[in-house]
């Protein structure tokens, strides 16, 4: 068989399969919708996880260590310390809050304005706010090392960080991660089953055809080819549909999500899937389709061996 004949055959099968799908629009749309929905969910989960990661990164970005200096430390002295700490490798950025600023904020926050106004002296110390580098903020160990290190500096009376919040975030992320993986695995299995099931029923449906083709000398690969293309195409279209569903889903959810995040003082827009993950989603749909067609056809072709095919 020449190359041309071979190519012609494959192209014919491809076009023929496309034709079959479009000749049965009802059933094709059904199968592809099922596959699309089954693929959309792990894809959507993945996108959600990405967004959660981005969201927590925003938080890490805002992570800061408060350094309460001894009351006797002057503002000038504090400024020097600020400048030297700005050179520290683990610190991205450092800010100073004077006792007056601190008292103003404290009054506002505590609602004890009148009571505090009666204080003759401002008892509050100078506070430095150190923003750690992202790499440090992301690791609880490095962070507590930095906090200890800064706490040992001579003018610092207390170095404090809201570690509790980091712990909560970590626990939440662990929960989300687990849930996403469990669901993704279940749904991946679902896609495999759906496509396998569709192909299986297509085969059962075309048993007679397969039997006849084998009787007139068709090889296994000849019989298999249209099913493989059909699995591939269904998976591919299902993947594209999944992409569409994810985009719609995200656009539906993005309003409440951004209003939620604005409450945390973070400007945060939901991203749907990027190009690369989108490609991966679509091509894994196609691959899953091909693979489950291959497995199913393999199982069923054995029925058509001599002595098993009751004619």
């Amino acid at each position, binding site marked *: 068989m020449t190359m041309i004949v071979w190519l012609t055959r494959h192209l014919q099968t491809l076009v023929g399969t496309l034709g079959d799908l479009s000749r049965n629009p009802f059933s094709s749309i059904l199968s592809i919708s099922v596959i699309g929905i089954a693929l959309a969910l792990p894809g959507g989960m993945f996108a959600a996880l990405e967004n959660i990661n981005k969201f927590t990164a925003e938080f890490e970005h805002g992570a800061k260590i408060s350094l309460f200096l001894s009351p006797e430390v002057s503002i000038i002295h504090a400024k020097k310390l600020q400048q030297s700490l700005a050179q520290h490798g683990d610190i991205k950025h450092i800010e100073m809050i004077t006792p007056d600023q601190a008292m103003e904020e404290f009054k506002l926050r505590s609602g004890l304005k009148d009571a505090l106004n009666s204080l003759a002296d401002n008892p509050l110390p100078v506070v430095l706010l150190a923003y750690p580098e992202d790499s440090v903020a992301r690791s609880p160990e490095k962070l507590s090392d930095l906090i200890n290190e800064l706490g040992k500096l001579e003018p610092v009376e207390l170095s404090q960080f809201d570690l509790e919040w980091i712990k909560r975030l970590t626990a939440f992320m662990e929960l989300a991660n687990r849930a996403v993986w469990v669901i993704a695995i279940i749904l991946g299995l679902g896609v495999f089953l759906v496509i396998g099931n569709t192909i299986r029923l297509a085969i059962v449906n075309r048993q*007679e055809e397969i039997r006849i083709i084998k009787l007139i*000398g068709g090889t*296994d690969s000849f019989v298999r080819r249209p099913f493989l293309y059909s699995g591939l195409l269904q998976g591919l279209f299902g993947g594209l549909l999944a992409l569409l569903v994810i985009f719609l889903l995200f656009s539906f959810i993005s309003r409440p999500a951004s209003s939620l995040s604005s409450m945390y003082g973070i400007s945060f827009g939901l991203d749907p899937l990027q190009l690369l993950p989108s490609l991966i989603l679509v091509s894994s749909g196609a691959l899953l389709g091909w693979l489950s067609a291959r497995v199913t056809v393999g199982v069923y072709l054995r029925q058509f061996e*001599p002595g098993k*095919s009751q*004619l």
Partner: protein
Amino acid sequence: MLIEFSNVTKRYPEGHEALRDVSFVIDKGEMVFLTGHSGAGKSTLLRLVTLIEYATRGQVIVNGQNLGRLKRPTLPYYRRQIGMVFQDHKLLHNLSVFDNVALPLIVSGFHPRDLRRRVHAALDKVGLLNRDRAKPITLSGGEQQRVGIARAVVNRPSLLVADEPTGNLDAGLSDEIFDLFHDFNYHGVTVLVATHDLRHIKRLGKRSLTLEDGRMIQQANTA
């Protein structure tokens, strides 16, 4: 092709012995009829030749090849040498008549260039050239049977096996079909036909094998 059965027994899984200790030889280029009552084992014998079933005991040898030892992957190539006509036509209902007849050529990687000519020639022989675009379901019973015959001869097999090829045809048409087989045989094709119609056996004067309850009771020339 030379066909040789030696003490062949075929028992179906359900326990029924459809052939019992059958032995015979068909020479290359011979035309042989297979007769017997309903349920005698005619279709079963043809299934052993076409490797739809394996013999339970005994040997079936076609063209020097012991079919019991044929390797699985070579089975399609073995079948491509055989033209088969089935009792129930076995057409693909989603393909046109043309595509049905073309199928054996497509399957064996025949070059598309000559395909059209060959298919039309085969359809012409069975008188259905004008129905080539129809779907099999829109044909009458006899027309479907003729499509099946065209498909069996389209790739010029060296062995032609037919199971009641004219059960649904009237006398005139059925004569034409048998004459067609005879003509193929004349050009060197080995022909093996199961039929109830003793008239053709007499008319063509060929050897006939007779089965009764799975036993070969006669191998004479009944002409």
